[in-house]
């Protein structure tokens, strides 16, 4: 008698695809001398004063849990920061929750609002976790693909067309990973109109808000009538170069915050205590360092866009984040083929646009969170690679 082994894994998880980035990571990790443009985190180490604040908190023995929503001192700093920086006002006591990275913030946001069958509109290309998180929460992700022709900006007509009677919320991420696209106030206003007309909620992943280079970031929650229908998600990972600390936060109206806090309290208890003390220091005294990192990123962005144009890849000028998203369509390769060939032949790691969903095919994501020396070397190698492609096509 043959027995097939019973699987204990939930079917919903079984059928989820692992992150597409994983495959390249595994391949790249085995190689020597790789120049990586594949990294989605700052190359800067967290500012010393911020690290020192965490050390100090440990020395003083602050090693217990904090309130579920996080240290009130930190929530107060966050509320103050959000108000000064983006003109949105939240009550530190009722409307701010400190989370384990923006990722956990996204998770509690989804779980707090999704009833079975609810549709969440996800605008692609986007961060790889959005659709899986929607589905894990029992919702279904309805994707909209944006294109290079519109600079990867969500078009109001596209949004209008994707809305059904089951639509609960729209998930937006600007400045965007992987395209670096930023929406200006007018873009956001036309989206907000539709959201209000259909009485929807917006989950705004604004983790790259601090990294906007040409004009300051506009938070959708700051628009007329949007605060009551927006869950803002932000954190310290990108702007403050604190990825490994895992510290993010949500700002949302009181009823939604209360719902999210229930999940957070059962699933997480609270965010890491030393990280919270570090974050207080970051908000109180770290802004000058953020500005100086931003200046470097801006120079690198300009360098990358211009260099890609020079070596023959079409590339729009992204307003924020630390990614450029050049088109590789002229090579005739798919983005996955391009990335794999480039890695094997020239040892440069980039992420194929296709892993970020609809609209990403034909593009590659190149992070410029690396030193100028590394970027120069990468450009040199990619240029050589493109020449070789051209010659072999002749």
């Amino acid at each position, binding site marked *: 008698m043959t027995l097939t082994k019973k699987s204990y894994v939930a079917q919903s998880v079984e059928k989820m695809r692992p992150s597409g980035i994983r495959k390249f990571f595994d391949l790249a990790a085995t190689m020597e001398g790789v120049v990586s443009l594949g990294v989605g985190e700052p190359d800067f180490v967290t500012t010393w004063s911020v690290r020192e604040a965490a050390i100090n908190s440990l020395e003083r023995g602050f090693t217990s849990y904090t309130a579920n929503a996080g240290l009130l001192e930190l929530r107060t700093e966050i509320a103050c920061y959000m108000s000064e920086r983006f003109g949105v006002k939240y009550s530190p006591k009722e409307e701010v929750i400190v989370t384990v990275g923006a990722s956990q913030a996204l998770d509690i946001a989804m779980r707090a609002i999704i009833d079975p069958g609810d549709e969440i509109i996800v605008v692609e290309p986007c961060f790889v976790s959005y659709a899986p998180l929607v589905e894990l929460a029992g919702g279904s992700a309805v994707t909209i693909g944006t294109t290079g022709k519109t600079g990867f900006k969500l078009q109001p007509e596209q949004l209008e067309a994707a809305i059904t009677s089951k639509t609960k919320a729209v998930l937006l991420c600007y400045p965007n990973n992987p395209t670096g696209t930023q929406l200006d106030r007018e873009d956001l206003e036309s989206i907000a109109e539709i959201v209000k007309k259909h009485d929807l909620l917006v989950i705004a992943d604004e983790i790259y808000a601090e990294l906007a280079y040409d004009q300051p970031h506009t938070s959708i929650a700051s628009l007329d009538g949007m605060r009551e229908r927006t869950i803002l998600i932000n954190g310290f990972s990108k702007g403050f170069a604190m990825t490994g600390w895992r510290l993010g936060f949500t700002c949302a109206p009181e009823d939604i915050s209360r719902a999210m806090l229930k999940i957070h309290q059962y699933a997480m208890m609270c965010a890491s205590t030393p990280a919270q003390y570090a974050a207080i220091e970051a908000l109180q005294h770290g802004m000058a360092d953020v500005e100086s990192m931003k200046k470097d990123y801006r*120079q690198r962005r300009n360098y990358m866009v211009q260099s890609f144009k020079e070596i023959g890849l079409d590339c729009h000028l992204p307003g924020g984040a630390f990614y450029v998203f050049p088109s590789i369509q002229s090579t005739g390769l798919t983005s996955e083929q391009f990335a794999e060939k480039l890695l094997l032949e020239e040892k440069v790691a980039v992420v194929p646009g296709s892993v970020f969903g609809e609209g990403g095919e034909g593009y590659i994501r190149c992070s410029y969170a690396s030193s*100028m020396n590394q970027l120069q070397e990468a450009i040199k190698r990619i240029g050589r690679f493109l020449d070789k492609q051209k010659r072999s096509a002749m």
Partner: protein
Amino acid sequence: MKLNEKEVEILEILQKDARFEAADIAKMIGTSETEVAETIRRLEEEKVIVHYATLVDWAKMDNFTGVTAMIDVKVTPKRGVGFDEVAERIYRFKEVSSVYLMSGVYDLSVTVEGRSMNEIARFVSEKLSTLDSVVSTTTHFQLKKYKHDGMIYASKREDNRIVVSP
């Protein structure tokens, strides 16, 4: 001299790494190569860009015996020329690598580089202390260089990030 935003940005880039080429700087700040080259030439002429040099960690060299001392010097300023005259008499010595006028308990901070402790001792006792305006000197020898001009000498910075991440 009034510097515009682009000029300041060029200076900041070169201060971090003088080997950046004009073509790359042009891309970084969104202007043309000729404009960058021209700006740099002008800033050199105006002595806003004083000099280009290389930071060398001589301690890495076997049998390196060179020493650096920082000397606090109290002086009597002179009518009409203040501290400038004595400062000049001091900075003209080629073994002196820097001279600053300081606030606080002493007046001039003088850095001296020599091949040995003896050489510096001789400089202080024979050249520096004997100057008319010099009232007193306190010599501090550097034992180890950890950080200089914003660069950390000891550590090799490694990139610990995973190669590809979302």
